[in-house]
């Protein structure tokens, strides 16, 4: 059977790509199946953003080949600004090429796995199979997840075994410096029972304009009593069409904390969903965003409560300038049976320009009586009384606005555990709001 696609790739080419990477047969099958399904599956429908005319399928080339780094001293100056030479647990992907990887001896001895997704498929196939688009994001959810599964061309795999607590953060850098590169990255983070890990990823473009696509999926699993802190700073260039889906599943007594600094200059659909499956599980989602230029973005943050006594917190702060337009959907969903659960959310949008648009849509969907929930949402300008207060101490209006904006975006900056990344986010914010 031949499948007609509007993709720049044939089924045969996809099969060759899979073979070249030495992928297990189940994975090749998943690619081909998804490749076919992508034809007929509909696009997702992010609330209040029309994406029917967005380009999710046309890209210059599926894979580019880029240089690798022999040692940490060989990293480019750009990367060195966000990676400390002392960083022990590190994976760097250069466009589509796994470029550098290392993990401390101690963690390796304890069975912690940190590697690129292709190596993981070859060397830890069963483990990857258990988690890859099975329980988190499904390949057949919609056209974009299917395209992702079919075209996956990069990503990382982090596995922390039972009872292992990783003290130092794990850093992953997706370094993008080729305007023709497309990023179909898949990240899997698994913290097995009673383990603990902090993972921080960077999407880091250094080209001014990209011709490519970004269709990114992260799946994050905290097993019973495990804890994951997931930090991300996305700085993808203008020109990308970006779909980024980060999803977490928390088992009994588990905790997933997200700290996402979404600073893309591209049009972006971002989806961040946390399923609180186990009793007493906790999901804490912090997202900060700056929109500028004529960017169109849609950010959905959702916490779904299945387990009893589960606690979901959503905090979203967005700054909009120029004629940027963003939709912020915050959804707390409590399923029937999730008694004593608590769903809280706060969405705030700060408008710096009369032409910018920002919508904060707080949504609570509750199918259980014995729960607590709350939401707060606001869209507005910088409070003139705050400016008055700061200025009354001699601070100029410009500096006062800068302080208020940085303060507004501080909730994510402050919790990022890697200094270089924290500094990067602060500088990106500085650059974008100026």
């Amino acid at each position, binding site marked *: 059977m031949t499948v007609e696609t509007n993709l720049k790739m044939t089924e045969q080419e996809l099969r060759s790509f899979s073979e070249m990477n030495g992928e297990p047969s189940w994975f090749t099958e998943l690619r081909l199946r998804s490749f076919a399904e992508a034809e007929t599956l509909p696009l997702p429908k992010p609330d209040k953003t029309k994406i029917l005319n967005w380009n999710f399928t046309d890209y210059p080339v599926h894979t580019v080949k880029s240089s690798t780094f022999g040692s940490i001293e060989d990293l480019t100056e750009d990367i060195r600004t966000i990676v400390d030479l002392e960083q022990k647990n590190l994976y760097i992907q250069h466009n589509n090429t796994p470029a550098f990887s290392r993990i401390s001896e101690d963690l390796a001895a304890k069975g912690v796995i940190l590697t690129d997704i292709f190596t993981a498929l070859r060397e830890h196939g069963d483990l990857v199979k258990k988690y890859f688009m099975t329980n988190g994001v499904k390949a057949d959810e919609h056209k974009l997840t299917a395209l992702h599964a079919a075209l996956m061309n990069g990503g990382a795999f982090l596995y922390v075994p039972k009872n292992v607590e990783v003290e130092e953060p794990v850093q992953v850098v997706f370094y993008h410096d080729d305007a023709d590169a497309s990023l179909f990255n898949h990240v899997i983070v698994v913290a097995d029972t009673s383990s603990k890990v902090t993972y921080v990823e960077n999407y880091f473009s250094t080209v001014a304009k990209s011709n490519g696509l970004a269709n990114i999926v992260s799946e994050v699993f905290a097993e019973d009593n495990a804890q994951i802190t997931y930090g991300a700073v996305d700085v993808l260039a203008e020109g990308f069409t970006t779909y980024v889906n980060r999803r977490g599943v928390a088992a009994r007594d588990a905790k997933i904390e997200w700290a996402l600094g979404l600073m893309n200059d591209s049009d972006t659909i971002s989806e961040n969903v946390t399923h609180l499956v186990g009793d007493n599980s906790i999901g804490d989602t912090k997202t900060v965003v700056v929109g500028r230029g004529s960017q169109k973005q849609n950010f959905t943050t959702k916490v779904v409560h299945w387990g009893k006594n589960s606690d979901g917190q959503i905090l979203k702060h967005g700054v909009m300038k120029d004629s940027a337009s963003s939709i912020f959907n915050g959804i707390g969903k409590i399923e029937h049976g999730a008694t004593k659960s608590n769903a809280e959310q706060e969405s705030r949008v700060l408008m710096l320009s009369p032409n910018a648009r920002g919508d904060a849509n707080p949504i609570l969907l509750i199918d259980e009586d014995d729960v607590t929930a709350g939401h707060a949402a606001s869209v507005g300008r910088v*409070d003139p009384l705050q400016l008055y*207060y*700061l*200025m*009354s101490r*001699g601070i100029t209006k410009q500096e*006062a606005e800068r302080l208020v904006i*940085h303060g507004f975006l501080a909730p994510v900056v402050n919790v990022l555990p890697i200094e270089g990344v924290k500094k990067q986010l602060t500088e990106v914010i500085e650059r974008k709001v100026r």
Partner: protein
Amino acid sequence: MSTLVIKDLHVEIEGKEILKGVNLTINTSEIHAIMGPNGTGKSTLASAIMGHPKYEVTSGSITLDGEDVLDMEVDERARAGLFLAMQYPSEISGVTNADFMRSAMNARREEGDEVSLMKFIRELDSKMEVLDMDQDMAQRYLNEGFSGGEKKRNEILQMMMIKPTIAVLDEIDSGLDIDALKVVSEGINQMKGEDFGCLIITHYQRLLNYITPDHVHVMMQGRVVKSGGAELAHKLEAEGYDWIKQELGIEDETVGQA
């Protein structure tokens, strides 16, 4: 010596005239107190001096050493030497108290001549000790989640760090228990000297037990209706305001419908 001169000041808020010709002169080395019942325009005067965006000066003048204060932006007034301890200070999330105060101090200095971190911390620590404030308040977000008393202390802390020429303290004593009142008064008394003048706005004579004013003014109906020395405050404490109203033939002391 510096001098703040307020002449025939008329101020409106949302079209309603609140101040109807205030005259007041404050020199450095002097402590002035403005007393008066609620609703007589005291806080409006404070806000107008600092340049609150909602208050509109319709006539009259404010000058600091001859410079036209009303012509200055709020931050320029501050850098010229004015300070207002606010009754309801804003909360600014994400900005630490310490960062804010350093920004305020550096705003008065040339680029490249910023106050050194060590010197700043030493000074901040010592002032916080005077005000009996927890050290962790330096790293908390500006006024966020502060109790009423903590906010008042924080206003005085800022004054002590910034060292203004003329400070206006708007009801700095309201809501303070007696211990906090003593501490705040101690902070203000430490500022006293040839290079510092102060205008204290208060309902209560109680604060003036700890800070002796050189001049006491009573405001009614949007004007200063009586001025005297420290003894005037004592008389007000003992006898209330009715004798002044009788003396001046005032029935309703508040700023009535214009």
